[in-house]
């Protein structure tokens, strides 16, 4: 089964590995990469120091496969969709999400990457707890 979750922040090595998917292919001409990073937002006058992600792993795997299938159906020029999301604690400034879409041409690569990120936010069973500088926390969601 494809592994879509990774404990802790995503590393440069993992991002490089994602991008290496394009190697040895001659049917792709455009690649779009989205990287999501934890922001040090100010919440109630307190700084967000980190986010703790939790996930329903088996459903993440199923839902990510469905998202990839949907993207490949809607964007017929897309050849590769890669998704990698952090679980556990990711500090402000570190990377928690990577999406790479490769297509024959740039327009579909860019549009499909954007749609994939939106579907991840809407459908992937992942939750985040913002950890604040005073050791309090706030649960966040993607509504609104």
């Amino acid at each position, binding site marked *: 089964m494809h592994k879509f979750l990774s404990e802790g922040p995503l590393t440069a090595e993992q991002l490089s590995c994602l991008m290496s998917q394009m190697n040895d292919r001659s049917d792709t001409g455009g690649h779009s990469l989205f990287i999501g990073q934890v922001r040090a937002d100010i919440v109630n006058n307190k700084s967000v120091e980190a986010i703790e992600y*939790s*996930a329903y792993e088996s459903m993440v795997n199923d839902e990510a496969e469905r998202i990839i299938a949907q993207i490949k159906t809607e964007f017929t020029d897309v050849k590769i969709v890669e998704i990698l999301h952090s679980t556990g604690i990711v500090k402000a400034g570190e990377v928690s999400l990577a999406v790479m879409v490769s297509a024959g041409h740039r327009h579909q690569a860019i549009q499909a990457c954007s749609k994939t990120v939106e579907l991840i*936010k809407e459908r992937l069973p992942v*939750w985040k707890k913002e950890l604040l500088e005073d050791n309090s926390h706030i649960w*966040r969601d993607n509504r609104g």
Partner: protein
Amino acid sequence: MFFGVLAEVTGTSFLYFSGVRTLSDLRQRITDKHPEIVHYNFRIAVNSLFTDDDCALSDGDEVALLPPFAGG
């Protein structure tokens, strides 16, 4: 199974019930044990598939209470 804020307010990630025949029966059993969850929004997945309806349950089914997602 409880996730996110629901795991926090119930103090657990797993509960096991036997002899539950329908999803509405299960919801009642859960709210009897953890009445505080009625104050939270959540969807339900049975065996990793969303369901908005009552449905029959069998032994071994995995039911997850899912607060609004926050991936990304």
